[in-house]
């Protein structure tokens, strides 16, 4: 029995739903409408992208995605460590709490934050009720960069915690015991043993947060009331308002290349992330 056959369904799947669409995007991205309306090869749209306006949008998207990734790492790493520790009592409950929001659609989750965070939302109403805020006052949580970053962190945090947790829970405790026996204090055990061993998980975590964050358009649109326009929003409008599939595809291509480059920067991420991906 030839084992190659096992992968046939997936190969067919990815041909139809990954490779072909990608080629279509590349085709549109590398062409432009000529005077007579037909498509011909052109780098004109790339030139158009590499102007301060669109580079600025790319920079902003990358910046917000990077900030969210760092926050996710700072919040997620300790959480993953606690989850993976042997003597945690209610591990399944904690795991449940992390995973449960992911059972709900991202749009619904994000819209529900509107109800909470609006100027007339539940949190502001509560603060007014207990007298922290005056009758006409409100704290403006939404409609800003901060709201977008918050939305990214909230939505993508599980994608940071889970890969790190998965690597850490498989860690060989005899190595840690050995380090302790050889006289390393807690800090040194972490610095020299636990942390280096968890790096593959961190790499997958970073990838799994940064990539959806830099490409999002729903979170920024909903939580900032379209005040913050990320590349995803600009691409969406290019297709829907401008009906300019060529420029829209060019922007998508640039974004893909940018993501690829930023992942390459991470040293040996491919090699070391074995077992890091659990979802």
């Amino acid at each position, binding site marked *: *029995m*030839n084992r190659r*056959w096992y992968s*046939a*369904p997936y190969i067919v799947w990815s041909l139809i739903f990954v490779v072909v669409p990608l080629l279509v995007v590349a085709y549109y991205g590398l062409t432009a409408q000529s005077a007579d309306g037909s498509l011909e090869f052109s780098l004109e749209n790339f030139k158009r992208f590499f102007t301060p*306006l*669109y580079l*600025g*949008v790319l920079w902003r998207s990358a910046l917000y995605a990077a900030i969210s990734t760092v926050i996710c790492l700072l919040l997620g790493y300790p959480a993953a460590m606690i989850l993976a520790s042997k003597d945690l009592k209610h591990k399944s409950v904690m795991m449940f709490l992390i995973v449960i929001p992911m059972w709900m659609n991202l749009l619904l989750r994000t819209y529900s934050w509107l109800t909470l965070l*609006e*100027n*007339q939302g539940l949190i502001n109403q509560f603060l007014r009720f207990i007298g922290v805020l005056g009758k006409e006052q409100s704290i*403006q949580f*939404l*409609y800003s960069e901060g709201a977008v970053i918050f939305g990214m962190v909230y939505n993508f945090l599980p994608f940071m915690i889970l890969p790190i947790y998965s690597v850490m829970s498989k860690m060989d405790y005899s190595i840690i015991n050995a380090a302790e026996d050889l006289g390393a204090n807690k800090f040194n055990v972490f610095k020299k043993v636990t942390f280096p061993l968890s790096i593959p998980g961190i790499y997958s975590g970073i990838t799994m947060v940064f990539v959806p964050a830099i490409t999002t358009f729903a979170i920024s*649109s909903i939580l*900032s*009331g*379209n*005040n*913050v*326009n990320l590349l995803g929003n*600009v691409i969406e*409008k*290019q*297709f*829907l*308002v*401008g*009906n*300019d599939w060529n420029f829209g595809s060019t922007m998508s291509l640039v974004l893909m290349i940018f993501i690829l480059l930023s992942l390459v920067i991470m040293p040996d991420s491919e090699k070391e992330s074995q077992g890091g991906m659990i979802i």
Partner: protein
Amino acid sequence: MRKIVSLLLAFMLLICTLIFSGCNTDPSKVVRVFNASEYIGEDVIKQFEKETGYKVVYSEFASNEDMYTKIKTTPYDVLIPSDYMVDRLIREDLVQPLDFNNIPNYKYVDETFKSPYYDPDNTYSVPYMWSTVGILYDSAKVTEEVNDMSIMWNDKYKGKIFMLDSVRDTFGMTLKKLGYSVNTTDDTELDEAKSELLVQRPLILGYVTDEVKDKIISGEGYMGLVYSGEAGKAMAEKDTLRYAIPENGTIYCVDAMVIPKKAQNKTGAESFINFMHKPEIAAQNSEETYYGCTNTEGLKLLPDAIKNNKGLYPDVDILEKSEMLKSDDKINQKYLEIWNQIMAAN
């Protein structure tokens, strides 16, 4: 090996049955209608099915652009897009001439809405409902009289104003404020509109579309640009809300019913179009959605509170100063580029 192949085949068979099981009904008994969301009276479809025996497959689109993309791959019998999109469908030869012998109720259609720019000979389209863009505001919070767009530039209301996340509408209303055409392609006029929108940007709480109504009702904002039907619904929910159309004119929009070339049931489609112009049905649609009735007999059946509301049914002279949006890719791309510049500034 054989086991796996047969498993695979079984799987494919399953998928095929799932995909095609929906399509085995006779197309001449089915009318596929593609309409904007929440844009029809509640049981109108059922009444149509009962009266004619056709089965309606009803789907909704979020925007004309979504519809345009979708019809390239899916066949429908009746589409109800907006004026500029009808224009485009006719120009691109995607719709077919109607047989008005099958649409006798066309005689009820208001002359005002006949022979529009997009279909001057009334060959391809029958008007459905119409609307304006205007300002929905809370009269308990906005004390000034609202009769033009300048109120939306008043910094007294900083952080309480919503604009539409719709490039052409927001630009159009700004151009109208400056006294220009909503369809201008003149660079200096567009530049002026751009500066105007940049000045306004710090005052704006958000650029949203479907949510404006709810945000004004909840008090999140005191005023916002909306389509008249949305305004009608909002006013019905909160009685301090008012809807005003700028004195120097606005954007108005007619949505029209057309039959795509790829339609599989043209007779059924025409029967549907005819049914929509039965006076009671036209009135029911307008009463429930608050969008403007294009049917003269239907209009008479509407409750006074609706037909006498000057926001929803403005005087003719305001309509004469108003314009429909005309659109093609070039003009939209031009506006979008400027829109991107405005949105990048913060």
